[in-house]
């Protein structure tokens, strides 16, 4: 995530600019392990975003819980969030990251209604 924003890969050139607040965002990344205690806050961040909104799940931990199958971890953030794109990897390569974002752009382009048919 750090590398993909830095000069080599540079997400800014694709028009993906980090915002300071969920209220100004079009999509969000869920990056890293989601714990049960944190799940409420993740959900609240999602609820604060204006529609239309999209979610990208980044890495094994956010996708499925990854190697952590314990009392405190959520087994994939899709248990409580509608995820549009899953980026695999532990951690994902910057290329995979960009691939995931392009996938989301394709998905948005394919929308024919106000919301996507994909959901």
């Amino acid at each position, binding site marked *: 995530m750090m590398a993909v924003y830095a000069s080599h890969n540079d997400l800014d050139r694709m028009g993906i600019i980090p915002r300071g607040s969920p209220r100004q965002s079009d999509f969000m990344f869920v990056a890293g392990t989601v714990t049960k205690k944190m*799940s409420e806050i993740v959900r609240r961040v999602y609820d604060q975003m204006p529609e239309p909104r999209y979610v990208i799940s980044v890495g094994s931990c956010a996708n499925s819980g990854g190697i952590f199958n314990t009392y*405190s971890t959520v087994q994939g953030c899709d248990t409580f969030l509608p995820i549009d794109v899953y980026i695999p990897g532990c951690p994902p390569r910057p290329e995979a990251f960009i691939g995931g974002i392009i996938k989301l752009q394709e998905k948005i382009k394919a929308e024919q209604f106000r919301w996507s048919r994909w959901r």
Partner: protein
Amino acid sequence: MEPLQIAERLKERFPDEVLDVREFRGQVSVTIRKGKIAEIGRFLHDEPDLYFDYLVDLCGVDYLGKKDLRFEVVYHLYSIKHRHALRLKAEVTENDARIDSVMPVWIGVNWHERECYDMYGIVFAGHPDLRRVLLPEDWEGYPLRKDYPLKGPAQEWSGFLDVLDRSKKYKQYDWQG
């Protein structure tokens, strides 16, 4: 000062409290009774040639099925001035899982003791604010105990159930395509 000499000093001062002194690869561990832990801490901290001004770490250990006295609280001490270190191990029973807080001696131990309470349920008597640090406040059980199931108790934590319920409820407003 050599760590074994420190252990000797401690044994002279508290002959009834010190149970065992062990050396392993130059590191000395002193097993003590839990009763006078605050006094022992005060002695190690204040004595000018010992001067353990830095409590590196405090952790709990669960010896379920391996020892009669189930828990242990481990204190890693270091003296920045003299550059020597010592490890204290205080034995705590399961029935009476409480030990005096060493907050009056090392104030920075506040969150360490709270974490130990959070994970093992060992009560630190005299601690000013003994709440859970990492887990939610209404969590049941102590997860680092050996008899705690790895995936948690059968009954899911209510806070996470709320989140699941809410997300299920909001699903009806999603565009189905």
